[in-house]
Every structure is written in C-alpha cells, then in structure tokens.
C-alpha cells in the first residue's frame, strides 16, 4: 500500500486510491479472519464522489496505534501503526488477550480495569496521571498514552484503544526536568557563594541575574533589567577607587567590561551606601563577549527592541567583600611598622654601647676582645638592614612608602656607596667605570638602597673575594647601571623569580647565605617606581651581573591614578 500517496493524495487523482486493486500478499495478511464478526464492519466503506474508503482504511490512516478488543478482552483488530509500535503482526495478535501487550506487573490490575470500563463505557483517557507502558514483542517497554472509546458494531460491544508512543515526549520531559533541577542547583550554589555574582548585559549594564550575596554587598535590591547606573544613583550608592577617587562610568569595572569588552581583574574598590556605611570590594568583571540571552525586557525597555533578538555584550561581575581582610592587613602592617621601629631602638643603643666598649678596649690594647665587638657590630648592621627591609616592604605594600625625588649626581652616589661597602670587606675591590657627573632625577635614598643592595649581594655571593665592577652608561633614554661579580652565580631557572617577594634561591650553594628574600624585590619595586627596569645575567660558577635603568626624567612623576 502506498501510504504516502494516501496521506498526500488529492481528490480526483485516481492513482492515489488504487489499493483496492493492488491488494498484495501483505495486504491480505492484514485482514481479519473470515470468521471474525468484525470483518464486515471493517470492510464497510464510506462512499465519496468517485472513490470509496473502508473503515479499515480509516483506522490505518491514524498516526496513532489502534486496537479493537471485544468484551472478553481479546484483540480483534490492530492497525499498521500498532504492528509497527509493538513489533507483532496482526496475525500474531488476533484473538490474543490484550494483556499480552502489557508488562507483566500491570496485567492482573488491567483485567480488573477493563471489566470496570465495560460496565460503564465512555470515551476517556486511560490512567490519567499515571505512567503507562506497553510491552513490545522483543520484551522492551514503551511509554504510551492511551485513549479508550466504546465501539458498537451492531450488538457486538467492543473497545477501541488509541495508543500513542510518547517515548520522545517523555524523554523531553525528563531532560527538561533534569535541566530545571540543574538550574535550581546552580542557583542554590550561586546563592550560597560568599561572593556576589551578577550577570549584566548591554551598554547600560542591565542586570540579568544576581545571587543572594549581591543583595548583601549592595545593601539593596538591584532589579533584573535595571541599568547599573540607574541602580547606583537611585539608591545613593557611590563607588570609589582605593585611593579615594570617585569612580566614573569610564572607570567602573562592570561598565568597562560591557562597553569596552575589557576584562578587569582584582580591582579594588570601595562602595559607600546612602547611610554612609562602606565596604571594601575586590571586583572582577569578566567580559563574556556578544551573546543572545533569553529574558524579559525591563519595563522601560521597548519590548519590540531588537536587544532580545540580537546579541548583546555580556559580563560576569564578581564582588568580594574584603573589608575584614583589609582591616587585618592594615593591622598586620601597623604591627610590622611598629615592631620594626621598636626593634630599631634597642639596636641603636646596643650598637652604641658595643662601639663605646670597643673603643675603650682598643685604647687598653685588648685586641682580641675588641675584635669580638667588631663582629657584634657587623651583625648589628645586618640586623638593622633586615629591620629596614621589613619596614620598607610594609610601607611599599600599603603604598605608604614616601618618595622624595630630587636631581642628584648618580656617579657621586655610586662612589659614596662603593666606598662605604668597600670598608666592610677585605677580600673585595669595587671598581667603578664611568666618570664625570651623571645627573638624574630620582629618590636619592632609594636609589642608594638599590645600589647598596646590589653591591652587598655581589660581595655576599662572591665568598672567595675578587673585583666587583660597577658600570654606568648614559644613553638617549636614560642611564643603565650594572654591578658585576665573579661569584657563585644563579641557576638559569631561578633567575626569573629573583625579583619576587620573599624569593630565595634554594640550593646547596646558596644555603649558607641568610636573608629574608626582600632586598631584590624592594630594589625592583624602587626601580619600577622610577619607570626603569631591572634584570640579571648570570652563569652558575662564573658570576652575576645585575642591571637597572633609570629613564631620563626632569619633572616630578605625574600623580599615579591607581596601582603601583
């Protein structure tokens, strides 16, 4: 039978209705047994203008699987869809108990239901709210919807069952349910995060979604669809940078993310609420590019707006309340600053006592004792340097390191530092290259600190003694200064970490050299503050050369907006 022709056929086209004449082998099989009481009814035809269609044809036309059972529950007819769905041929099913098509567990109850239906037959859905299953010939189950209708052929009572395979719908429902559960779980996770997470869209930075912590951070509800600036102004919220400058639309991280597509990380901000309370925030605004989001437009946004059909720039905004962290950090810094001051005071008196005593012993000719005191004095100098570094690092971290720039002669400073350090060693000579005056505009004390650090490192890491060469070269961009030693050198893989805070080269060679790992970090920070660069070239066993540059500057540094 040409099913397509049947479905698509138009009246008047005789060829579409040829099945009567073309009854093939298959067609004959799909006919009730000659003795069936249904046979005449199925064969009865509906008369059209030029063609006729039998009731059986009608049944076969249905997209649903159809089954007719008699009052005894025996299958008397199934259509082709039924055969396809259950995998049985009509011959196999004819006169079988209907329950053959049910999973074992439903069979007993079904007989009972069937009898009840026969007692009060009416058209209805079967098992509303229940999940119904059919059993295929191959033993697999198929989820189905079933509609029942009483059918009377003369005085023969029967029931027509329409069965629809809902495998696809069921699986869609299931995946929808799973997706919903997943979404709920995600929202739950979002809400439980101790950081504020929000998603914003478009030029206006309208809110798409936010978690519960967002409410806590802002102290007020940012409504979905509300533009960020509108939200801020209507709630009297103000944002400041860490150095107290009011943030403008061009500097607010989330706005930068949606407008310039710029991802802003770890931006420190301060939020001030209408009631004057403040919170220190660490902001991450991640630009997620142009995306199409489903959603409801904001009330004041044209509903016909293209914005819901065209992609908008989306940004993920994470606010972290760092007020407590900052307070802890501040207290730690305060403590270190105080501790280093308190430590320096007794070192000063100890050093003075030691030197007094040493002078006296020298006068008395007690060389052995005075030599010990010289050593103590040297140790005290080391201690003083460490305390100073500790204080510097704290002030540098908090941005409180005072800078005092002036024009001075770098060559003169190099000479001073070199001479001072040469006094501390008997095995090293410091040679200077480059003469004449070399005026630079910088913080003299800090550059002095860098030089002293590089030179004392050169001395320290050249234990066998030798010449340390200091070279100054002037060029168009500024000056480059280098300190070259012939010491133990630094392994290549460690060189990049040298200027990191607290970094210390850890190997057998370096084990015997104490320190906090701050000197080079501080030097690098000082050089960077001046706009210069610092680097090292080193070969283990051959020696190291440290370089730093100071760019030409005549005017004070413009005030830096943010960061260091």
């Amino acid at each position: 039978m040409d099913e397509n022709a049947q479905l698509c056929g138009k009246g008047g086209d005789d060829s579409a209705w040829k099945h009567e004449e073309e009854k093939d082998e298959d067609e004959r099989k799909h006919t009730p047994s000659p003795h069936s009481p249904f046979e005449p009814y199925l064969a009865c035809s509906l008369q059209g203008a030029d063609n006729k269609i039998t009731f059986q044809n009608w049944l076969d036309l249905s997209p649903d699987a159809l089954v007719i059972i008699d009052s005894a529950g025996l299958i008397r007819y199934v259509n082709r869809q039924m055969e396809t769905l259950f995998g049985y041929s009509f011959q196999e099913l004819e006169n079988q108990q209907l329950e053959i098509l049910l999973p074992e567990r439903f069979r007993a109850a079904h007989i009972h239901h069937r009898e009840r239906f026969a007692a009060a037959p009416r058209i209805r859905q079967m098992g509303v709210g229940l999940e119904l299953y059919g059993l295929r010939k191959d033993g697999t189950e198929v989820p189905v919807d079933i509609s029942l209708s009483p059918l009377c052929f003369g005085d023969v009572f029967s029931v027509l069952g329409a069965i629809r395979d809902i495998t696809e719908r069921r699986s869609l429902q299931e995946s929808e349910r799973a997706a919903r559960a997943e979404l709920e779980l995600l929202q739950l996770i979002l809400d439980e995060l101790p950081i504020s997470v929000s998603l914003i869209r478009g030029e206006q930075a309208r809110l798409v979604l936010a978690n519960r912590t967002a409410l806590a951070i802002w102290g007020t509800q940012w409504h979905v669809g509300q533009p960020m600036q509108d939200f801020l102004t209507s709630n009297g919220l103000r944002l400041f940078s860490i150095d107290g400058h009011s943030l403008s639309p061009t500097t607010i991280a989330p706005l930068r993310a949606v407008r310039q597509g710029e991802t802003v990380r770890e931006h420190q901000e301060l939020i001030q609420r209408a009631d004057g309370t403040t919170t220190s925030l660490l902001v991450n605004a991640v630009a997620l590019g142009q995306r199409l989001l489903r959603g409801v437009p904001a009330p004041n946004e044209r509903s016909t707006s293209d914005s819901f059909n065209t992609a908008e720039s989306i940004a993920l905004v994470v606010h972290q309340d760092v007020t407590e962290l900052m307070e802890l950090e501040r207290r730690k810094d305060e403590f270190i600053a105080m501790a280093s001051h308190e430590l320096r005071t007794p070192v000063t008196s100890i050093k003075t006592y030691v030197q007094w005593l040493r002078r006296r012993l020298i006068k008395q000719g007690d060389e052995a004792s005075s030599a010990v005191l010289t050593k103590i004095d040297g140790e005290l100098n080391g201690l003083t340097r460490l305390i100073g570094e500790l204080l510097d690092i704290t002030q540098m971290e908090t941005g409180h390191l005072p800078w005092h720039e002036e024009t001075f002669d770098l060559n003169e400073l190099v000479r001073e530092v070199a001479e001072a350090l040469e006094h501390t060693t008997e095995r090293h000579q410091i040679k200077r290259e480059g003469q004449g005056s070399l005026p630079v505009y910088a913080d003299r004390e800090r550059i002095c600190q860098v030089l002293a650090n590089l030179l004392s490192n050169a001395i320290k890491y050249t234990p066998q003694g030798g010449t340390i060469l200091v070279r100054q070269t002037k060029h168009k961009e500024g000056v480059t200064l280098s300190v070259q030693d012939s010491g133990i050198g630094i392994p290549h893989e460690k060189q990049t970490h040298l200027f990191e805070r607290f970094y210390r080269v850890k190997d057998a060679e370096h084990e015997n050299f104490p320190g906090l790992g701050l000197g080079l970090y501080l030097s690098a920070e000082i050089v960077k503050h001046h706009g210069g660069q610092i680097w090292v070239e080193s070969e283990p066993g051959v020696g190291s050369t440290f370089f730093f540059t100071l760019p030409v500057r005549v005017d004070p540094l413009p005030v830096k907006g943010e960061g260091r």
Partner: protein
Amino acid sequence: MKGTAQKTILIIEDHAGIADALRMVLEEEDYHVEVWITAEAVYSLQAPFPDLIFLDILLGGMDGKVICRQLKGLPATRSVPIILMSANKQLPRIAREVGADDWLLKPFELDALLELLDKYT
C-alpha cells in the same frame, strides 16, 4: 678639638637606652652631658646655652622637627648647633628642611658621631 673649658651637650631623646649610650660615649670624650627625655623644657631654655644639641625627631608627644625650627628661629638659640637624629632614611632631607646643622642616622657609627663632635664643638 676640645677647648679648655668643658663643653656641654644636650641630648633630647625619649628612649632611655639610646640617651644613656650616647651619654657614655660623650662623657668618655670629656663632655658635660645633659639628657632630657621630654622636650617640654626646651622653651624655657636659658643661657648659658649648650654647645651642641642632639635632637631626636620622634619624641613622645612633641615633634623634634618643630622644636628644631623654633630654636633656629629664635635669635638667642639660632647659633646653637643642632644635630637631628632619627632612623628615618629621609633624615638628611628632613634636617635640611628644618634648618638643623647636621644629622645622625640611627643606628649610627661611633666614627660618624665623633666626626660631628669634632666639627661642631
């Protein structure tokens, strides 16, 4: 170096240990030493004035920089040499700014101290 009459040095330093160590060094050098651990009395300073003042800039309650400026602003005390003391690395600049004659960075070397004594007494 030292004159015939014993010279007087005033130490204004709120840390007793440092003041004491300084006093030992100075007395060893045959100076007459006076120690003030607060600076309140500075405004009633009368002649004969000390020959040299060691002034700490971080004094409890009072600022050594202010005291220095004021002493240098008064005709009577203008000529008394003042040496500013501090652990602050910016001391040379501060000393210049407040009109001190010289500075001594803590912790100091005895040689540096003796040089200053030579220079100002």
